[in-house]
Structures are given as C-alpha cells and as structure tokens.
C-alpha cells in the first residue's frame, strides 16, 4: 500500500509514518501518503477513524507524536509540528470544517485578514483569478460572511486559504451540511482549483462525491489506511463499502 515515493521536488505534500492523538491516546497510527502537484487527494473513512485528526496533525493544530510532514518543491521544507500560522507562509493552506470564516466581516475583509498592505496589493492578480474561480463570491464581496449561505461560506473559506498562494490546501469536509446542489458546486470548484494549479487533500464524509474527482484516494479505518487507489477505482472496489461500514457483508452492487 505504500505509494510511490517520488523525488521531493516533484511532490506537493509527503506524510511519512505520522502518528498523532489526544491526551496520550493515539488516533492516527503510522500513516503515510503523498500528494503530487495538481492532484486531488481524498481521505475518507467512518466517523472516528482519525481522518480529521490526521489533517490537524499535518496542519499543526495537533502536534504529531511521531513521523514527518514535508512540503515538496525546490527546496522542500519539513513542516512537522509547526504551528498553523507559520504554515500559510510556507505554502500549506488549511480549511477547517467549522469556524472557517469571520462572520461579522465582509467577504473582502475576510480575504484580507492578516495580510499586510503590500501583500494585499501583490495579491490583486490572485484575487482576480479567485473571483474567476468563485464568481458567486465576487457578487457578494461586500456582504458579511454570516449573511452568506452555507455553500458560499465554504467557498469563502477556500478562498481565504487560496489567497495566500498555497501549493496545497488541506480541506476538512467541505460538503458537510450542504444540500446536494451545493455539494455538486463544491466538487466543481475543487476541480477548478486543481486546474488553477493547487493540490488538494480533502477529507470527506460524502464518499461517492469526492471519489469521482479524486486522483488518489485513501480509506482510513481505525487510524490507519486500509485501502488506496484512484478515486474511480476505489469507488468500484467491492471492498470499499464493507471496510467502511466495518461489516462482513458485502454490498451487493446495484449498478
């Protein structure tokens, strides 16, 4: 199950033997994975399997117990255990599931938080690109974040990460709580993000949705990676459902 470990300059993110947990209890056991530039990586699994914790360990919200996190490129940079505020500077974006926007700030202000005047000016081109990617956001740019719909808020959260020119963005359950229509919109936008040159590692509950667009996908069960492959392959894999649900019966294929 070990992915091909390519040369660091050609990878976006490499995680090696990462273990992490809370209060001494390990929730993530020895996970290794790799995301290449312009790739969408999917991480799925039942509740409590550790996928959110894995993202938090990579992004520094939780300090890993062991293992390494390396941001690829030339030169590559080791990020293990760095606090979240430093990662943005190195090129790693993180969009948490909840509390990912500033409710009482406008869309534009949300994007601008933490950026110096110079950085904001320099990001003008970036902003234009972003508004191309998220035209909905452009239309609401003067509205307060709390006035946006759930789907729009999610896009704003992605945009906040995007404006800092990341190499890769970690996204925690972007489609959670969204209606099917908005879910489709999210998948569409993730594809556009990939097309614009950003790699993504997406944790998702909606398995089918993310698998359709994922270049590489991993199923996590009980803190370890149980299955890997391309999204399409995994979706067709009969073992996926039974491993996910943790039952012996295999789902009879209707399609």
């Amino acid at each position, binding site marked *: 199950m070990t992915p091909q470990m390519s040369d660091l300059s050609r990878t976006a993110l490499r995680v090696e033997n990462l273990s992490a947990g809370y209060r001494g209890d390990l929730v993530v056991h020895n996970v290794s994975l790799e995301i290449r530039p312009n790739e969408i990586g999917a991480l799925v699994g039942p509740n409590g399997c550790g996928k959110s914790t894995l993202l938090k360990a990579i992004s520094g919200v939780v300090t890993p117990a062991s293992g390494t996190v390396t941001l690829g490129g030339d030169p590559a940079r080791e990020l293990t255990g760095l606090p979240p505020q430093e990662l943005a500077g190195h090129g790693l974006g993180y969009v948490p599931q909840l509390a990912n926007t500033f409710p009482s700030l406008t869309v534009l202000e949300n994007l601008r938080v933490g950026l110096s005047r110079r950085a904001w000016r320099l990001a003008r081109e970036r902003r234009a690109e972003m508004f191309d990617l998220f035209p909905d956001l452009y239309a609401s740019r003067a509205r307060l974040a709390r006035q946006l719909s759930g789907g729009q808020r999610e896009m704003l959260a992605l945009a906040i990460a995007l404006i800092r020119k990341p190499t890769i963005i970690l996204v925690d359950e972007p489609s959670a709580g969204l209606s099917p229509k908005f879910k489709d919109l999210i998948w569409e936008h993730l594809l556009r993000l990939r097309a614009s040159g950003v790699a993504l590692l997406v944790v998702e509950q909606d398995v*089918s949705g993310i698998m359709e667009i994922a270049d590489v996908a991993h199923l996590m069960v009980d803190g370890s990676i149980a299955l890997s492959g391309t999204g399409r392959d995994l979706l067709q894999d009969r073992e996926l459902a039974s491993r996910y649900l943790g039952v012996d019966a295999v789902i009879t294929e209707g399609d």
Partner: protein
Amino acid sequence: MEFTLVILTFVGFQIILSLGLNLQWGIAGMLNLAYIGFMAAGAYVTAVLVLPKATLAGGTSYVLGLQWPFWAGMLGGIAAAGALGLVVGVVILGRRLEAEYFAILTLVIVIAMSTLLSGQPNLFNGVEGLINIPQPFGASLSSTSYGTWYLLMVAAFAAVVYVLARRVQRSPFGRLGRAIREDETALQVFGKDPFRAKLKIFVLGGMIAGLAGSLTVLYVGAFAPASWAVGETIFALSCIMVGGSGNMFGGALASAVIVTLFVQVPSLFNIAASNPEILAEVQVMATAILLIVVMRWRPDGLLREPVGTVAKLERRGGLETAHRRSPTRAAGPRPGAGEQPDRLRPGSSPVPVSRTPAKVVPQVRPAEATAALEVRGIAKRFGGITAVDDCSFQLPLGGIVGLVGPNGSGKSTLVETIAGFVTPDSGRVLLAGRDVTRWTPARRAGIGLTRTFQSARVWNKLTVTENLLVAAPGSAREALWRGVFRPHATAHADAVVLRKAEETLHEVGLWPVRDQLAGELSGGQRRLLEFARIVMSGATVALLDEPLAGVNPVMGDTIVEQIRHLNSTRGVTVLLVEHNLKVVSALCPHVLAMDAGKVVAQGTVQSLASSEAFAEAYLGKRAPKTPQE
C-alpha cells in the same frame, strides 16, 4: 483586654458571615454579590424592632420602632433576611441565568438597596442611618463583663452556625448542591430540579447573613449604608476563597486570621491610621490582593473541599467497613429502597431512602407489551434547515436498538427531542404509552428515562462514589432539613444507597477509583461512570449518545460489555446512537438508519448493509453525474 474582646467579637461576626457565603458560593457556586445586603436586612430590621418609636424631635426617622426584646428583634431580623432571600431567589434563580448575568443582577440588587435606603430617609433614616440602638443585656453590667457576655453569645451562635454549615456540607443535600455547581444540566436527567435546592441554599445563606447583621447591630449600636458595601461581600468572598471554597473550617479560619491581622493594618499604613474612613477600604483591598495572589497559584484555596470517601460514608452511616465485595457477588440480590438497614442508632427511626414512586413500567406481557419508547412523526427545523423530518419508530421493552447515520442525519437532534432538551415542531414522544412531548427532562426522568451525553457529563469535583449517590433517587434523603436536624438518620439512609453504589462500582470495574474525583478519570472511565449512574438511578429506558466517542479503543470492549450488561442483566431498554457499526452489530439485533432527518432503513445490521438506502446514506449517491473534466 477589652480590645481583645472587641476583636474576637468582630471575628465572630465575620466567621458567621463567611459560613453563609460559603454555602452559597463554596457549595452551590453562586456568585452572590448582594450577600452583604442580607446582612444589612437583618441589621436594619432588628434595629427598628428593638428601637423605641421614632419621634420627630429625636432627629432620626424610621419605620416600626416596637421596642421588642432583643431576641425577638433578632428573630425578626433573621426572618426579614430570609424573606428577602426568598423573593430575590425566586426572581433570579428561576430563570437559569448564566453566571455573569446572575452576578450582575445581584450587583444591581445590592446597589439598588443602597440607593433606595440612602434616598428614603423615612425607612431607616437614610444616609445617616440608625443610632442609639438599645443593647441586649441592659446597662446593668460593667463594660468588661458586658463585652465578655456578648462575646460568649456570639461564639455560641458561631458554633451553632458552624455545626449547621458542616452538616449541610456533609449531607446528601450538600452533595446535591455541589453537583449543581459542577453541572446543572446533567442533574436534570436524574429527575432532580436544581432550582429548589439553589433557592434553599440562597435563603439559608441569606438568613445566616441576617443573623450576623443582627448581632453586629446590637453590638455596635449604630448602622448606616456606609457600614455595608459591595466591598464587604468581596472581603467575605476573599476570606473563604483563600481558606478554601467549600471548606467551612478553612473559610472560618481564614476569616478569623484575616480579621485579626487587619486590626494591625493601621500601624502599617499611617494614612489609614489617621483616617478611619478608608480603613475598611484598605482592609478590603489587602484581602482582595491576597485573593488574587492565592488564586493564581492555588485556585481552590488553601484547604481542599471535603469529599465523601467511601470509608467516611460507611463510618457515618454506621456500617462496617468490611463491605469489600468481590465482583462475583454482583450476581446476588440487589439492595433497594426499603431494605432494612443493618444497624441503626437506638431511638431513631429510619429515613426512607427514596420517596419517589415506583417507576411507571408496564408489566412485561409479551402479547400486549407497550413499547417502552415511541416516537411519532417528530419534526424539527432550525432556521432554514430541517434537522428531523417526520421520524417515527418504536423501542420495544427490554430491547436494545441502534440508531446510526452519518453526520447531519439528524440523530443528535432526535436524541435531544426524546430526552426533552429540545421541543419538536411537530410529532409526539411517548414513554410507556404516556405523551411526554412537552415534559421537561427531569420529569421524564421521573418515569424512568435517562441519557448520556456525547462528551460525558460527570460531576468533576465529586468523587466517583458521590457521583453515584447523587444519581440515585432520594428526595427524602436529600432534604435539607433532614440533613441538618437528623444527620445520623440521613447518613444511614445514605449508607443504604452506598451499598448499591459499591456493588455497581464493582460491576463496572470502577471500584479501584471509587474515591477519586470524577474529573481525574480517563474518557473511558467517565463513560463507565455514566453507566453506573444509570444503574443507580433505576432508569428503565436509556438513550446512549455515542458512548464510544473519545474512548480509547482498548476500553471499547469494556464499554460494549457494560452496555450489554445494562440491558440483559439490569433490564434497561437501550437506544444506542453510534457511528461504530461493528459495535452496533455486536450489540443491537435491530438498527435504525437515519439520513437527512428521516429513518431510511431498519433491520439487522446485516440486512442494512445490503440495503441501497443505507449505503447511500453513508457513501453518497451511487451514481453521481460525471462532472466535465
């Protein structure tokens, strides 16, 4: 000599004050900034009861002036303080306000009192206050012997109040108060209403403050708004927090030491010495500094709050300590309410352990068994989002049913609705056939429903055993007056429940940590404690909300075992909400699957696993439209 008498007398006043506040704050966690107002109420009313009628010529004007004997005046003062406490308590405690709002309201009250009384010269002579208040023992005694007699009287009262406070602290009522301080919400699922207990403590504390006020005003002979200010409450609060919140001895000791010490303060600050008006302020200031410093390094104060260890409880209840049961004895007959106690102090009659009526549990008649729990057409919307949409199902008596579904499927909202913490927009919840849709959680607990929470809500500063004792029904055992006036009988009733608690502890495997504070347990142990509390409460229907969340996988098997035991041996009907399908399939012969607010599939886990709807719920639609590349 006379000076020492004076100091000791004031020490006595402060000790009494501290005991009352320690009940309100130390035990029940109420930040009552108006505390000194109750002392003032006691002082003022006592004064106008013992004073002769006010004359216009005299220059002071006040109400009443009945010239009663001092002891009647004292009774009146205490009663007035109690009445004030009752009125204020009913108004502000009933609303379940957050701590900040409660504190602000009490501040409003004390400042309003002060403003009113200062502004209304006809009540208690306004700003100038009352003077020439007659002394209790008359002018016949010499000054020194008068001082001695008064000190003895104050000391006697202080001793009585001390004993009273200690008894409250040790009693099941006091334990209930501490549980209220730790987590009021969790208390509701055991059928106990925090409001009445808080009100009683509030009034009792107020009356004790009134007593202190009475004694002070009769000693000093004068009383004015300047004698009492918010600072005095902070002073008392500082004393008990430094001494140890919830520790009556610590609070009293700290008060005594601090008051004695601060008599020396004038010699330290020349300005204060020459200016008696700011003396009180400086004393409060010094104590406040001490408070901040002590809190920084020892947040609970110098002395710990006494807890009821098993050994202590057994001893007080008059039981042998040799009740070390081994786990194998757990299969034996369960002690319950009404069982005759082993030994009883001669001359006293037993206290009923619980006066709650037997739970309404229908007899198990297989043919016509009513469902233990039924949900009919429950719907709930939050803003624009439909959380639960026309949900219906039944929970058979004695059954153990699983409820599964991905995040956002409405499971949590449904559980909150069944438990009574959320009112549904439509639909009904029936418990053993009774419509409980509009009932409070406490009332539902009264007929046998209980629940656990996603993150275990245990009472952190109570020991494991104390947690169990609070969970057990006990309206008679936990009565305040019984705890105060019949401590031995109460302790004995406690001990009866203790036996069941000990057995339960062995069953769930928590016996080794029986005397540990619940806040120090691991996640898995806290879950087990929740289960033990369910057993103690005698509940017949339990909603278990993700009991494996936050539990070390190693503990997982134990938890599963305990749930099985709860259901098969203790006969508790269980609705198990869980994500972990392995666990659900191990425990539940029948499972409900929810998605988007509805029950989309039911059956055994095996049959569900082959159901399209179920797979879709978790994995998403199987045939999504292919997005353009």
